[in-house]
């Protein structure tokens, strides 16, 4: 009996240490607008177009190239990945309710791979306009830090800095296991951040580094 209590305490301690809301206090629940998450693409002003050097590491293989992220209208985000020589690997259009494949090379045209990529791009580039009523937390030590617990896709904690107006990280949990962690790393003088995405269940990483296009 004592052992059971000890195990429960240990599990409880482990979960609270790993929790995405550690050091935060709940400040209410309401619908969340996309703009409150400070999506990366919005930092480009009216242009709403960003270029990244991208490296995708999937188990032992690695593919690098250039990623174009462009908001073509209020609801559509176009994501195009091509190699340095200009060969297109994939071209997706994402809206809050649709995922359209314009181009995709055969090795990636697998249901599971496409589902993961769709989810990851939705996470990174905040493709919903409004998110259903969600719990909101703020940091106990820094009131500028706000965390939105969004229920799409899975359970996702979006941590933003309201003072700097930036999205700093996303912790996504999938049921029963898995999910992804996304970090946005801002360097001085650059509008766009470096983005690192790591899947929790499989060896899949995305590394995105912004670069200017003439």
């Amino acid at each position, binding site marked *: 009996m004592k052992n059971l209590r000890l195990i429960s305490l240990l599990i409880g301690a482990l979960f609270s240490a790993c929790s995405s809301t550690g050091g935060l206090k709940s400040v209410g629940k309401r619908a969340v607008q996309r703009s409150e998450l400070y999506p990366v693409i919005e930092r480009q002003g009216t242009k709403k*177009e960003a*270029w990244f*050097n991208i*490296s995708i590491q999937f188990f032992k293989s*690695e593919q*690098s190239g*250039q990623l*174009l992220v*462009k908001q*073509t209208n209020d609801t559509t985000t*176009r994501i*195009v990945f*091509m190699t*340095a*020589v*200009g*060969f*297109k690997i994939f*071209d997706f259009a994402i809206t809050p309710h649709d995922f359209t494949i*314009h*181009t995709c*090379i*055969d090795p990636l045209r697998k249901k599971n791979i496409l589902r993961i990529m769709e989810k990851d791009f939705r996470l990174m580039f905040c493709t919903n306009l409004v998110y259903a009523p969600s719990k909101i937390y703020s940091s106990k030590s820094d009131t500028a830090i706000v965390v939105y617990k969004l229920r799409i896709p899975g359970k996702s904690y979006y941590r933003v800095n309201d003072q700097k107006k930036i999205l700093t990280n996303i912790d996504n949990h999938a049921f029963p296991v898995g999910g992804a962690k996304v970090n946005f790393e801002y360097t001085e003088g650059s509008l766009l951040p470096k983005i690192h995405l790591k899947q929790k269940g499989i060896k899949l990483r995305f590394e995105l580094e912004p*670069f*200017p*296009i*003439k």
Partner: protein
Amino acid sequence: MNKYIAYLILLFCSLQQAGAQPKMKPMADIPGFKANLLASTQKAKSMECDFVQKKFLEVLTEPVISNGHFCFKRENLIRWEYLTPNQYLIIINNDKVLTKNKNEKANVIDTRSNKLFKELTDMMVSCFSGNIKAIEKRYSIQYFETEKQYMTKLVPLDKNAGAYLKNIDMYFDKSDMTISKLLMVEPSNDYTEYNFTNKKLNLPIADEKFKIN
């Protein structure tokens, strides 16, 4: 009324632009072109040049431009080096392809185990070595010319290659029979244009430049 005037101005501008492009006509002497190309490329042991790559995407209003340096050495050695806006290196050394980003470790692919890469590298080597015969097996070819250029339009015969490439247009300068422009058109009609300038033929190029470890 203003709308009609705007349309007329647009039409006039587009007609002027169309007029600026020399019109392609079917090639008069195809066997002569093939023989000429083979003879001149046989003489060319190496070629070095600069290139400008323009990627035209339906989703963008302006092309994405990259610049770099290109080297070819007989038989199967190609060094394709991007300098701006990104540094990126591709080396084709027979059946091996090396790709390397500025900050990354090199990635080596054996084209014998990658059909798509093999198709692309074979096509590139054939383009620069002027080996039309090798291309004829895998593409249907149409031949055109202007006063200053020859143009071959390649359409892949293989269904798998056709899924990625609609056609490849190769432009050769009549003066020296070297390639001056390459156009790779995708099934979506997005395309990549490569323009080759400052061409230098038969200068010594060290084998080190094509080394794949």
